[in-house]
Structures are given as structure tokens and as C-alpha cells.
């Protein structure tokens, strides 16, 4: 679309059917009109002014057609932007996550044995996994095959849906962590590391399988021993934070490198 537009006079002559317009000028005008909505708008105005018979015919046709149209396209509702971020099936699963974290908080408040690690802190790393699994899962997302065949499928949509999960889960963890008086960094960094690891592993074995594998590994290897022996391993100590950071970065790098895997059916298990 060039910066120069056709003059009003030229458009007027064109609409009037002036045969005196030189061929090259006519050709240039028509080529310009094809691509310039501004000049087409002006052309429409001139048609309205100069040729009332055309206008009256068109408005006659419109008034005849309008009662026949079943319904006009409805305006896009506001609710849509939420659907473009969160997976449409996410809400109940986030509710369940909030419920589990709330129960963990109640247990922490009720049980005040000295030296016992906080249950909120123990569960915080795996809190987002339920939401992440739902975002890209064959069994839990009914439209998985439709979704994975669309252009938006792939890393872009996976990350968008993961962000929607984290936007809810992180404030929840902050709130619950604050109420249980645990370390904020020790809740959030492991939570991010587990999220990225789930997506990375999910590219190979499917996201929901990856979430199940990682959550069970965490429960069996850390939560169980800690609750049984009441000792705090390195993974729950502030000294372990660099390890969590490294795991998070490694997960992100793997996800980006293998981004193509998310456009196939395999990542949907």
C-alpha cells in the first residue's frame, strides 16, 4: 500500500464512467484500488453521491435480504481471552490443587511437633503438576486430537497453558507458604523446576505420564522418608537452591530444543 492515494477527481471520473481516462492511468487506479482500503472507502462514498440509482438498488437489495438472514454474526464475547490461555478443562483441577494445599496448611497448623518439616513445603514442588498435566493430556482434554492438529499447537500453546496454570498456582503457594511460615524461595524454585521437568519429559513420554512419574518419584523418594524419619534432606535445605535452579534451566532448554515434539500426537499421553 503506497503512501500516495488516488485523487478525488480521478475517482469521481472513474465512477462516472469517463471514457477519457488514459489506459495507463486507469490500470494504475484499479491496481491501487485492489490493495488500498482507504481509496475503496472513498470510491464507495463517491458511488453514493454520484449514482443514486446504484445506491438505491443496493439498499433495496439489503432491505430485502435482511429479514431473510437467520442471524447476524454475534460479537466476540469477553470470556474468550481466558479460553485462549487456560485449557478449557482446567478449572476443576485447579480447584482440587487449591483444596490439597489448603488441607496441607490445616495439617501444619494442627500438628505443632518441633522439627517436623512443613507439609506445605513438601507438597509445593508438585502442586502445579496436576494443572500442567491437564493442559496437554489425552485422557483429560477431550479435544486433544483436534487441538494437536492446529497451527497453534506445539510449544506455543503448551507454554501458554502452563503460564495460565502458574498464574494461579504461584499466588496460591505464596499465600499458603506465608500462612505456614515456610521459605518462599524453597517453595517456588522447586515448583518451577518440576514444571519445566514435566514438560521436558512430556516431550518424550507424554505430558500427563511425565507428571505422574515425577510426582510419584517425589512422593516416594522425598515426602515418604521425610515424614517417616523427620530429617530434612538437601533438596529441602536452602543450600539446595542452586540445584533446583539448574534443574529448572535444564528443563527449559530441553523443552525449547525439542519443541517440535509437542505438535505430534505422542506428547498427548
Amino acid at each position: 500500500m503506497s503512501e500516495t492515494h488516488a485523487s478525488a477527481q480521478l475517482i469521481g471520473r472513474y465512477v462516472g464512467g469517463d471514457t477519457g481516462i488514459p489506459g495507463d492511468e486507469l490500470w494504475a487506479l484499479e491496481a491501487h484500488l485492489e490493495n488500498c482500503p482507504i481509496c475503496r472507502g472513498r470510491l464507495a462514498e463517491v458511488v453514493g453521491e454520484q449514482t443514486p440509482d446504484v445506491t438505491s438498488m443496493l439498499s433495496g437489495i439489503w432491505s430485502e435480504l435482511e429479514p431473510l438472514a437467520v442471524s447476524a454474526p454475534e460479537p466476540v464475547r469477553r470470556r474468550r481471552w481466558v479460553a485462549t490461555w487456560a485449557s478449557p478443562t482446567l478449572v476443576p483441577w485447579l480447584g482440587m490443587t487449591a483444596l490439597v494445599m489448603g488441607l496441607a496448611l490445616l495439617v501444619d497448623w494442627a500438628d505443632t511437633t518441633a522439627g517436623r518439616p512443613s507439609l506445605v513445603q513438601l507438597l509445593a514442588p508438585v502442586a502445579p503438576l496436576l494443572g500442567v498435566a491437564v493442559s496437554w493430556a489425552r485422557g483429560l482434554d477431550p479435544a486433544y486430537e483436534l487441538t494437536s492438529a492446529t497451527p497453534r499447537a506445539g510449544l506455543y500453546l503448551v507454554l501458554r497453558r502452563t503460564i495460565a496454570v502458574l498464574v494461579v498456582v504461584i499466588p496460591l503457594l505464596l499465600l499458603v507458604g506465608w500462612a505456614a511460615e515456610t521459605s518462599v524461595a524453597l517453595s517456588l524454585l522447586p515448583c518451577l523446576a518440576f514444571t519445566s521437568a514435566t514438560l521436558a519429559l512430556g516431550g518424550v513420554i507424554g505430558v500427563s505420564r511425565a507428571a505422574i512419574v515425577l510426582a510419584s518419584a517425589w512422593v516416594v523418594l522425598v515426602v515418604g522418608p521425610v515424614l517417616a524419619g523427620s530429617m530434612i534432606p538437601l533438596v529441602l535445605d536452602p543450600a539446595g537452591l542452586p540445584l533446583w535452579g539448574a534443574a529448572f534451566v535444564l528443563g527449559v532448554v530441553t523443552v525449547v530444543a525439542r519443541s517440535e515434539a509437542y505438535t505430534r500426537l505422542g506428547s498427548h499421553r
Partner: protein
Amino acid sequence: MKGDEQVIRAVNAAEVAPTTYAWEIRAEGLRVKAGRRMAVDGVDLSLGAGVHGLLGPNGAGKTTLIRALATVLRPAGGELELLGASVGGRTEQRRLRRQIGYLPQDFGFYKRFTVREFIEYMAWLKEVSKKDIPAAVQRAIERIGLADRADDRMKTLSGGMIRRAGIAQAIVNDPRILLLDEPAAGLDPAQRLRFRELLRELGSDTCVVVSTHLVEDVAMACTDVMLIDEGKPVFRGTPSELEAAGGAGDAGDSPIERGYTALLARHQPDRGSR
């Protein structure tokens, strides 16, 4: 477009650009795995505009072939070109998928969405530009004859209507390649007639691939037929050639069914007359 506001629309250059490929779908020796099994083994295709029927018994590899064409399964071997572009590149794939419409065999949907919301959501996933979505959705709904139920929730629809909503989401982005896996399942006879009409209409400028096991549907709506069995192509030709392949001695109630069973029996002699 109401009242005194007039719209003058010009055809833009992209709409009249000549195509730079000979076939919308071209495959050579295509092999695709479903799990560990080689479900499609050495299929050659060259499909242009028109309605192409994909026939075969259950487990013949129809769904796997359609999934490979929809680019959700990566071919295990051979060549696959869609709209002149070789399937595989990342950015290329995104551009390509914008021009593909796909209806899976059993497609899920979100029960709480209305028909319009569901198709709007699919249009968004297919990167239809934001300002075009309402009109494109309405057009798709009207083409498939669901306008009166557009604002009802999906869970209140009957099976045939859900199938039609599925077809509407497949055509909402005006695809150049339309892949329909068992689209006529669950439609009543009147709807099936209307659906065939729509197929013929779409086939005038779109490459439509319809997989079906309803042999009669193929005869009525398809410009050509491909018969596959155990992942291998058995027959390729027009519906009348398929009819001609069968003799009076073959199983079936109509000429086209007899042709179908005759060709399958020839391919798999040990199966006899199934």
C-alpha cells in the same frame, strides 16, 4: 453491512495468485507407523481438487493415513508433500496447518461450550485472524445447517449434530485440504444427502479426503476412490471403475459393494469372500 453503509470489496492479489504445485497432496512410498505396527506401508498419492474417497476394511490404515496427512503423525518413510511443501519443517508446518481442515474419527469437545464457542475456539487455534472469526464461524455454522442450534451447549446436541459441528470446525478456516475421517457416521439419511451435497460443493475447489466404510457414500459423492487394505493400496480409480471390478458372483447387494469385495478378495485370496 447494514443500513446506508455500502461495502465495496476488491479481489486481492493473494486470492488470485496461481498455485505453484501440481497436487494438493502428493505422497510417494509413504510409510506411517501406528504404535509399533506399520499401519500404512508404501502408499502413493497424487490428489488435486475434488472429493477423494478412502475405502478399506477396519484396521486397513485409513485413520493412520489421514493422521499423517493432518501432520500429527510423522511419516516413518517415503515422501509426503502437502500444497507443494515437504512435511517436516517447523515454521513451514505452521503455515501449512492453517490451510488444513481435519475431523478426527472420534473427536472430543468441551461439553460446556456452545456450538458457536466451540467453533470460535477452533478458529482461534487455527489462527483465523481475530476480525474474521465471527463471520467465519457464522458461515461455517450456516453451511452445515446448525444455525438454529448455534447458541445451545454442545452437551445438549444429538450425535448427528455433534458430527456436523465437527465438520463445521473443519471448514471454518476455508482449508485447501480437508481431511474427514468417517464424517457420515451418525447422520440420518436426510442429513447424509445434504452432507454429500456439501462435499460436492467443497470439492469444486478443495482437495477433500473422506475416509469411510459406507461404500454407498463413496459412489454418490466422490470423484475418485482409493481402496487400501493392511496399509497397502489395492485399487485406485473412479466409482464406476470400482463397480466394474465386481461380477455377479461376488458378495454384496449393489454393484459397488460387489466391486469392493471382489477387489479385497483378489488382494487377500485367503480371506475368501469377506
